[in-house]
């Protein structure tokens, strides 16, 4: 069976800047694969190379079995792409854009019309299809973009930050659509995101990219299990931070977190919470906030890079059904 996406030593330089510094990837057929990383990590540059928009400076990649450099035309036939900034002409109507997309992909008119109607229905835009896209909401544009990328029934679908900027409801709807697409149609999905929850919810496997390199790769649950201990976070007065840090060091290694928060991997798990509270009390540390979270993808990212994923808090707040953290087991 053809490997949908495979890259070896993929590098992209822009002058002296190395945006992607040797990425190795393999996405299995029918898989939802999430490429997770902060802004500027190299996600979009990698996608642009895989979708033939940028030539790699070094390394090789095959998409749908074709080399992205020497067989770019074949790659383009087999993929659907929705890029980060939904590039949709605001002067055109949804239906006109679908017609143009059909022309670009060489679909016969009758098939294109039927497929367009089906996709418009699926993404809930049938009623809005005759309106200019400039009048659409952000969520509607994303859904139209998804419909455009699916028109020719691609073997591999690339989605570059598909839910960035969407409200929680629109984000949930898009997730549902992607799940359906993957489960019912077997489409391989290569998804880039900076949202931890998105990767966690949708992907069978993820790769975390930072500084142009993949720092972790695997199934989300396995990666989280590898982190081991749950994360204990406490907030104390600034003047007591050093004392609290010294106390916490007895219970586990410090983990990076946002400013004002002390975090450790609590080696003994939830059973040790009482001991921690007692120790802090004996040291006269006043605890202003305390929480124990099961390992998350953010912990995986933090362990791999030494810092939290940019916007992780915003992500949790913005994500539908988002919670501050999973309860410890």
């Amino acid at each position, binding site marked *: 069976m*053809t490997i949908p996406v495979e890259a070896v030593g993929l590098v992209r330089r822009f002058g002296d800047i190395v945006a992607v510094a040797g990425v190795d990837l393999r996405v299995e057929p029918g898989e939802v694969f999430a490429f997770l990383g902060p802004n500027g990590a190299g996600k979009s540059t990698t996608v642009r190379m895989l979708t*033939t928009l940028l030539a790699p400076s*070094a390394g090789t990649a095959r998409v749908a*079995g074709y080399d992205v450099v020497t067989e770019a035309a074949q790659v383009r036939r087999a993929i659907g792409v929705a890029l980060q900034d939904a*590039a949709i002409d605001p002067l055109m109507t949804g239906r006109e854009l679908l017609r143009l997309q059909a022309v*670009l992909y060489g*679909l016969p008119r009758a098939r294109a019309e039927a497929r367009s109607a089906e996709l418009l229905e699926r993404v809930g835009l049938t009623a809005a299809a005759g309106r200019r896209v400039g009048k659409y909401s952000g969520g509607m544009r994303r859904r139209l973009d998804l419909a455009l990328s699916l028109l020719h029934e691609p*073997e591999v679908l690339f989605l570059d930050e598909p839910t960035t900027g969407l409200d929680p409801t629109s984000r949930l709807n898009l997730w549902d659509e992607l799940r359906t697409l993957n489960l019912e149609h077997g489409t391989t999905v290569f998804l880039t995101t900076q949202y931890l929850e998105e990767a966690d919810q949708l992907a069978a496997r993820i790769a975390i990219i930072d500084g142009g390199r993949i720092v972790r790769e695997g199934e989300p649950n396995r990666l989280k299990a590898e982190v081991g201990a749950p994360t204990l976070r406490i907030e104390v007065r600034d003047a007591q931070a050093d004392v609290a840090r010294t106390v916490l060091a007895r219970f586990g290694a410090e983990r990076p977190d946002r400013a004002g928060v002390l975090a450790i991997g609590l080696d003994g798990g939830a059973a040790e919470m009482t001991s921690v509270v007692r120790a802090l009390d004996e040291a006269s540390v006043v605890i202003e906030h305390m929480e124990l979270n099961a390992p998350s993808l953010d912990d995986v990212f933090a362990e791999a890079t030494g810092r939290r994923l940019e916007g992780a808090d915003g992500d949790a707040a913005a994500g539908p059904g988002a919670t501050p953290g999973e309860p410890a087991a």
Partner: protein
Amino acid sequence: MSALPAAPSPARAAPGGALLGVARGLAARSLVNVTRRPSAVVPTIAMPLFFIVAFSGAFSSLTDIRGFPTDNPINWFMPWAIMQGAAFAGMGICFGVARDLEDGFYDRLLMAPTHRASLILGPMLAAVVRVLLPVVTVSAVGFLAGARLTDGPLGMVTLLVAAEGFALVAGLWGLGVVYRIREQKSSALIQVGIFVTMFLSVGQTPIDLQEGWLPHVARLNPLTYVIDMARAGFVGPITWADVWPGLVAIGVGLVVLGAWALTGFRRLVR
């Protein structure tokens, strides 16, 4: 690092857009968008109309100069105004491409399995149609204001060929610039190039009446011969000698600036 082995072809694949089909589709989009953003097409019509009215009035005495090819100022300025409209038509499609590049729509085109030439041919087809706007409107105003064909309807044919040729050449020049700069600010450079070329030709004054270094530059300027062709049917009987230098100039322009546009296009996906 090892190269990846070749794999069998995928089960699903789009056939890919045909050269002419995609070009027609892109041209249609460009033309439909003109109707939805009328401001984009105003220069194509308004500027030539302004020129024909203002220049024919303000410089009407020019035709009294001994050696001027016609005594009818409208006959002199109408083809010149139409050539300006043609320039705007050619440049206008480039501004649209610049907008597409800037807002990311062009990525959609680049990722489609189309014949790459269709992405250049499409805007060129749009330019060919857009030229008809100044040709029709400025001619109508010109004839109402007193323009007369001096060698029958053939004069309109040579004018149309010259206008279409110039629009294509201007469009290719503009595309080459846009592909390199990739932003709408490229429009300034495109216009400077076109207008300097236009004003260093015989647009306003016959070459024999120009003085100093101007006639030397005008003789070297290929646009001079295209404008001569455009005016041929308005200043006397049309001869082959009025036409062939213009056709050659257009041909050379298409080849040279076509290569300029193509090399710029290739830079987009490096």
